[in-house]
């Protein structure tokens, strides 16, 4: 079993995805436990992957025993092991919250949701594990198509949002594929390790420049990076609650990982200003996303624009590309996944009890103190109050920006935190001090939601206090191979 650890997480979610519809024919109630078991096992396997990497270093796994560059290669290294834990772990916690009680609000039949969610997770985990550019595309599309369906399953305005998501997502994927095609034409290989060796010889070639640009733009669009974030706000605002608990947390992170992997470890465009562009787009995203989030009265849209801002932090770190900034960006992948999941789950739970997603209708903190408290923890992390997780990603990003002598980006990070304070304050104030809407049910969130939420809140605090170990043992080694 240990030998198969690199592919195990995605095999587990894929198997789950295939089993859920079959089992659901016999018992619809079995869908949730089964989906949970599949993604939980995937999360454990991903954790096992981290243990494996810490003990034995990077593992390369030729799928089916076919050696690369002919066969497909799966790579388990510090970065992919870390990101797989983030996606599978946070994915599992958000699937927990779609259990009994919460799922009843989900009108399109739950087994379909669980199957699609597991397929999406398979796609994300595949993007992370894959050792060649083409399979990244394959898994990207697997994840994307299931995501379109998940968002669209909300019906009504979600359908329009999903259509927009389809169009823009396809543009992003096509850009990426086009770029990969350029590189293949140039080098005749798709294997990442192979490409990394061959590309330096072609550094000035127009095909290389075009490939790098297409890939960067395509993946930046997928990760919702300003100004390519157009699909994101609507998709995450109108997605049904269980989908909103899952996709905003992990989908953009998988794309950010793919961008980091291809740009920093394969293309390494030292001659091109691509990384600088990324850093500045990140800085702009931090501010613009936060300013847009300030103006929202719909809690879900507020959180969606906050994602635009927070993805800016990750892009900024990737663009600066020095080891400290990269550690910060990778750590923010973890922190943002957890806090955004917690906040969307919290808002979903409040909406379930209250009268809609408007800030004015969320004043249920006193009736739902556990939900409200967990949201405060996530909000503190978003603002970056120590010692909660989000503070430390900003700590490393700030250090990295100073190392790179970019005072403007330092200021962008700090101002972004203050703007986050304002928009998170609006949400928190609405929850705790708003008037509870008349006729709203006065009861805590369903137990399944509470388990997931409390686990996320605890994990957010633990990730802050324990960040030093994560950074020193996983993220610094992960950053070492970049550029």
């Amino acid at each position: 079993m240990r030998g198969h650890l690199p592919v195990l997480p995605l095999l587990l979610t894929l198997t789950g995805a295939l089993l859920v519809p079959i089992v659901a024919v016999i018992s619809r109630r079995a869908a949730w436990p089964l989906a949970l078991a599949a993604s939980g096992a995937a999360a454990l396997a991903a954790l096992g992957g981290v243990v494996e990497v810490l003990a034995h270093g990077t593992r390369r796994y030729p799928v089916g025993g076919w050696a690369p560059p002919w066969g497909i290669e799966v790579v388990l290294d510090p970065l992919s092991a870390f990101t797989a834990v983030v996606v599978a772990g946070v994915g599992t916690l958000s699937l927990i919250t779609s259990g009994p009680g919460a799922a009843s609000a989900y009108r399109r039949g739950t087994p379909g949701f669980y199957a699609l969610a597991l397929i999406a997770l398979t796609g994300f985990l595949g993007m992370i594990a894959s050792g060649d550019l083409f399979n990244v595309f394959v898994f990207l599309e697997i994840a994307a198509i299931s995501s379109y369906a998940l968002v669209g399953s909300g019906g009504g305005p979600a359908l329009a949002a999903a259509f927009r998501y389809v169009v823009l997502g396809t543009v992003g994927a096509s850009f990426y594929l086009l770029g990969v095609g350029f590189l293949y034409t140039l080098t005749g290989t798709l294997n990442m390790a192979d490409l990394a060796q061959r590309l330096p010889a072609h550094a000035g070639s127009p095909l290389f420049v075009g490939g790098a640009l297409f890939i960067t733009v395509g993946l930046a669009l997928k990760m919702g990076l300003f100004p390519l974030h157009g699909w994101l706000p609507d998709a995450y605002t109108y997605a049904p609650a269980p989908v909103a608990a899952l996709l905003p947390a992990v989908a953009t992170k998988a794309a950010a990982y793919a961008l980091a992997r291809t740009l920093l470890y394969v293309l390494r465009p030292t001659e091109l200003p691509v990384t600088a562009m990324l850093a500045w787009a990140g800085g702009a995203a931090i501010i613009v996303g936060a300013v847009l989030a300030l103006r929202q009265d719909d809690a879900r849209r507020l959180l969606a624009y906050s994602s635009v801002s927070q993805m800016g932090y990750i892009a900024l770190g990737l663009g600066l590309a020095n080891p400290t900034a990269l550690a910060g960006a990778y750590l923010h992948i973890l922190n943002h996944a957890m806090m955004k999941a917690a906040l969307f789950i919290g808002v979903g739970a409040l909406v379930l009890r209250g009268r809609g997603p408007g800030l004015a209708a969320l004043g249920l903190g006193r009736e739902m103190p556990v939900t409200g408290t967990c949201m405060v923890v996530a909000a503190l992390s978003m603002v970056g109050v120590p010692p909660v997780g989000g503070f430390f990603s900003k700590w490393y990003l700030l250090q990295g920006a100073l190392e790179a002598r970019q005072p403007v980006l330092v200021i962008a990070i700090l101002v972004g935190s203050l703007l986050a304070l304002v928009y998170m304050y609006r949400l928190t104030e609405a929850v705790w001090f708003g008037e509870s809407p008349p006729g709203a049910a006065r009861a805590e969130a369903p137990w399944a939601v509470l388990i997931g939420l409390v686990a996320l809140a605890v994990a957010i605090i633990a990730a802050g206090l324990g960040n030093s170990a994560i950074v020193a043992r996983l993220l610094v080694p992960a950053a070492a191979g970049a550029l």
Partner: protein
Amino acid sequence: MDVPSILPGLAPLPAGVAVGLIALSRRRPAIREMWSLLAALSQTVLVLAMVPSALGGATLVWQPFSLAPDVPLVLRADPFGVFFATVSSSLWVLTTIYSIGYVRALAERAQTRYFASFALSLFATVGLALAGNLLTFFCFFELLTVAAYPLVIHKGTDEAARAGRVYLAYTMTGGAALLGAVVWTHALAGRLDFQPGGILGASGASAGTLWALFALFVLGCGVKASIMPLHTWLPVAMIAPTPVSALLHAVAVVKAGVFGLVRVVGFVFGPEVLGDLGAGAALAWLAMATILLGSLAALAQDNLKRLLAFSTVSQLSYVVLGATLGAPDAFAGGVLHIASHAVLKITLFFCAGAISVVTHLEQVSELGGIGRRMPLTMTAFAAAALMLAGLPPGAAFVSKWRLLVGAAESAAWLAMTTLLLSTILNIAYFVPIIVRAFTGPAPAAIEEAPPAVLVPLLVTACAGLLLGLFPDAAGHLLSLAQTTATSVLSAP
């Protein structure tokens, strides 16, 4: 010499544990308040237990884990840290007793949240007092900002919510500036530990860089220290219940800012670097302006708590001024003023609270003759006010005297003039209140506040006097202040 010990780690623990216990016993007020009192007492004992080693030169250090790969979490019981921790925790004991009487007499809402936030604030205060490096300090500093927020908005009115927003906007902006300063220091010096005499001397950074860094630090700590023009949040925050204004807005929160500034001046930059830059003098100017303008603003107030708040704004800058003059006597006097102002201002707030418990009055102009009905309270008020102005033999006389001596030593005539002028202004805004309270027609049907409210304020008033007569008796505060000053100013 550093000695590994778990004691600095244990010191904030009672308050931290108490937060949970208080939340759990929300249905049993008596037990809930017992937890608060127990935590305050045990915290005080633990902090006092560290005084001998701090004075003896063996600094206890607890370093459990890393906050970041190259920055550990350090709690370090050096003289200055122990000094501030002693002041805040011993006053927390009295404030807890006072709080119990106060919230019950006024039947305040959300008492569990109140006591829990209080305990969390004191956890953060002792943590930042003992913090051994800037990142540890920053963590507790920000925690204190958040922990004190529910106390500002405690009343739950729109006005309180507005005050809370102002409070957060100011303190979090300061926090962001401080974070920038901390990261920058890390980049320049490659280390973040507090070292008497500073860590930036060997960084080789240009004067412009150091100026900008110092300005960021002053902005970062200056909000909590309410240096003008960053003070606006403090009078607004007076909407909080009086015990909160007493302990947090006269001792813990604002002094955390002042404490941070002294740390920055003495332990991050060091007097030498600041002297070469001329930045110390600039901060001294700011402090002197704040001392005078704060007192002048206090003259114009009718609301008693706002008056006390502006008086706090003014008094806090004494500490800053002392740290920037570069004379050991002034430095020690400034540090000691943290304690003397704390004891006396808390007395004044306790009196204001006692008055509002009994009469629900808050305006100075409505307090005519109140001294005839509440003689003990108003005598304590008068004594504390006069002692705060600097009349001997009060606590503030000792600290101000040292400040004056230090200013004279360093030939800072302007600082001396400011200190003397401010004393006159103090008398000018306190004496009318006292005169009115004892001369006007006595209001009907008023008596002294309940014992839980009355006793603490009498105790702090006596403590203010005793601290003036025997400044080295309670916890060796004077020695701690002097050791701090010597370590900073005679550092190699």
